[in-house]
């Protein structure tokens, strides 16, 4: 009896191994010819995103904390890490892949239906590993092209008085040392690119919705939304805060 049961389990396991290897093979067989290339760099605790490298048809630009992909087209994501190990994971699109400093990797997937998917970091990466997510928007090719064109443009110049005041404050305080707003003097690269912040769905790596109240709260005291974040708090008075928020909201 014991012998028969053992033989049966062995056969079952051999079957499982074979099934597993075949599944893996099928999953890794996506065509790469017409693929869209994106590079994502994991950083404590946000995502830096580069489009249009490797001679791609998409325009070249840098953004953060949000990924857009055309439906039905294979996407090759190059993964890097700037500090510690992170893991790129969009459960509804593909399995996990580690972003390991010094060991670039790629992940290949295809979104077969339009929609918004949640991605998140899956390797423990320090204080705010829990609040390191990002939305992925899968949209039609036309919508994607439009989005990419808008993202590649420089920031809209500050128009009215309050946004001009906001831009000045942004430049005078340390904001510009850490953040880039293309088309202005802000060229920092320590934090996310804010050129089109107003077009993003969420703030601080998918932590809160990108609305007026959250933006003000974030700038005044980032730690109240994401304790442990590396962005420092700034001592603006009400008027200054309103101006900076208005400026950032105008960056659509």
């Amino acid at each position: 009896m014991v012998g028969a049961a053992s033989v049966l389990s062995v056969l079952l396991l051999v079957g499982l191994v074979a099934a597993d290897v075949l599944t893996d093979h099928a999953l890794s067989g996506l065509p790469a010819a017409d693929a869209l290339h994106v590079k994502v760099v994991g950083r404590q605790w946000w995502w830096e995103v580069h489009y249009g490298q490797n001679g791609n048809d998409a325009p070249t630009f840098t953004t953060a904390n949000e990924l857009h992909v055309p439906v039905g087209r294979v996407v090759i994501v190059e993964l890097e890490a700037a500090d510690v190990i992170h893991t790129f994971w969009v459960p509804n699109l593909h399995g996990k892949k580690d972003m390991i400093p010094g060991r670039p990797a790629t992940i290949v997937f295809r979104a077969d239906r339009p929609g918004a998917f949640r991605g998140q970091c899956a390797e423990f990466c320090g204080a705010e590993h829990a609040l390191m997510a990002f939305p992925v928007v899968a949209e039609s090719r036309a919508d994607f092209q439009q989005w990419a064109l808008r993202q590649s443009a420089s920031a809209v110049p500050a128009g009215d008085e309050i946004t001009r005041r906001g831009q000045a404050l942004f430049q005078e305080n340390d904001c510009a040392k850490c953040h880039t707003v293309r088309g202005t003097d802000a060229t920092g690269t320590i934090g996310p690119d804010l050129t089109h912040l107003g077009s993003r769905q969420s703030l601080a790596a998918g932590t809160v919705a990108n609305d007026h109240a959250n933006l003000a709260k974030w700038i005044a005291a980032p730690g109240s939304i994401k304790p442990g974040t590396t962005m420092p708090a700034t001592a603006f008075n009400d008027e200054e805060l309103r101006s900076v928020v208005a400026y950032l909201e105008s960056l659509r």
Partner: protein
Amino acid sequence: MMPDGVHRHGDHLLDGGLDQAVVNALARTWSDPPSWTGALSAINHKTVSRRFMVTTFVFFLLAGLFALAIRLQLARPDNHLFDPDLYNQLFTMHGTAMMFLFAVPVMQAVALYLVPLMIGTRSVAFPRMNAYAYWVFLFGGLLLFGAFAVGSGPNTGWFSYVPLSGPDYSPGKGVDIWAQMITFTELSSLLVAIVLITTILKMRAPGMTLSRMPLFVWATLVTQFMVLFAMPAVMFGSTALILDRLVGTHFYNPANGGDVLLWQHVFWFFGHPEVYLIFIPPLGFISSIIATFTGRPIFGYPAMVMALIVTAFLAFGLWVHHMFATNIPELGKSFFTAASLMIAIPSGIQIFCWLATLCTGRIVLRTPMYFVLAFFFILVLGGLTGVMLGSVSLDLQVHDTYFVVAHLHYVLLGGAVFPLFGAFFFWFPKFTGRMLNERLGLWQFWLFFVGFNVAFFPMHWLGLHGMPRRVWTYPAGMGWETMNFVATIGAFTIGLSVLLFLINVVLAYRHLPGAPSDPWNADGLEWTIPSPPPPHNFDRLPVVRSRSPAWEENTSATAIGGLAADAREVLITSAVEAKPDLRVLFPTSSIWPFISAVATTVLFIGSIYTPWAVVWGSIPVSIAVAVWFWPDKNDTQTALSLERHP
């Protein structure tokens, strides 16, 4: 057979008879000295083991409290009970303490008590080194908890991946203390492994050939060999980490030719076998308990032993399944998938053998048996999810989610903690001379079993629905609220059950000892001597003729004699056949192992602050160890006077 009476050789009283004077002399000889310096000098294996068990159990309770704190924080979404840094310390302390300070050492601790009793000898080998190992372990554990108490606990998780745990991203002393705690505990478990292997191979009672050895002793032997091969890997890893952090080497720094993945390979080369260090000794508990409560020897003894050995080998070939999400070549992954699934085969064979034993025996349902039956249920579930995780495509989805948290607790609690509580119930009378209350035991069991499944089953679901592990909070609206709340209730039910166990122990201590030598009608040699055993374990050394010596007719009459009763003389036998070989004089109690452990601790802790501590710290260590090994005139005299010509 020896006639009852007093034998002498020169000045020495010899054992072998049943004369009270001889028995008293044996007890005096093997006792630990009185008073508090005596307590620090104790080297009797039962004293050291009892301390070891209590210490590991206290660490288990503390780590359990951390788990409850974790569950409190996660009971609700967006909960701000703890800030991220404290939460990260909590789960790091929980995982680290459970793995390094409880699960592995508690198995060694139990073995240190039971192995000499099961193989019929009066001591473990190298008893002073054994005491030293205990003190080193204690100090390592205190270091870790002390660091947490003063607010600098480690916070990088129980496998502390670099570069997060490296000098750039974890300033402060937390990680240094974590790495040094590893050095302490690994040193301790390596020494205990040497003690146990030597004891098992060279000190078995005459007649206990390898093929008559109790399955628990086999499980211990196999495990300790695994310790010898697994621990050096992590000791190298943690030492290289400390060097990177303290003296600026670049083992793990890719910018200077180091490699981040090196840490993962080294850690998991140890970390995966570690799961089996935790899981194999309980297989021995289970065999003892099942044999006793079915009234028959375990079915398929040779198959059981082979399965243990095969598991030990395969356990070293699986580590990469923890790294499927890194960019390892596909072929490599397939190999490790196959190996991961193959290890289910020996486990399956053992389970079939136990089931056959259960089917053909007359089952008596006592508390230890409940824990063993629960083991089957839980471990099979944990094993199934393990087979799922071994498959690359599935693993890439559930890796680093709560699915893995569920899996690892099904395996660790089901495979180790349930049988361990069964073992505590089973051997408690032997350890203490007192019985635990069966009614309370059953309450504890059912609360544990139900609480366990309520706590951990929902975590499978959470993982499949995308909840990552090691998150200090999660947003509302992800659909994870209910299951997290249920899991928290389950965790507190487990807490209640462990509390019942403590109450049970306290109640037992309010009675006078009075447990019979064999309350369960069990089969091992340990049940042929009083509960608790006298300092020298056996008045007369047994001679073994079968695998179930306590069930043999006449065994108790079969004994040999001729060892000194007034000196710590021990019989050494041959490794395979257990033929009497030598009489060896064992060392007496000494405080120097304790002092050496203190000196070692100063060196290890000092080296966290300055590399020079390795230089000046080695001076007191050398002095203490030199005094420890300095030949004692009286001992030499005794040894000489015991020499006999054949």
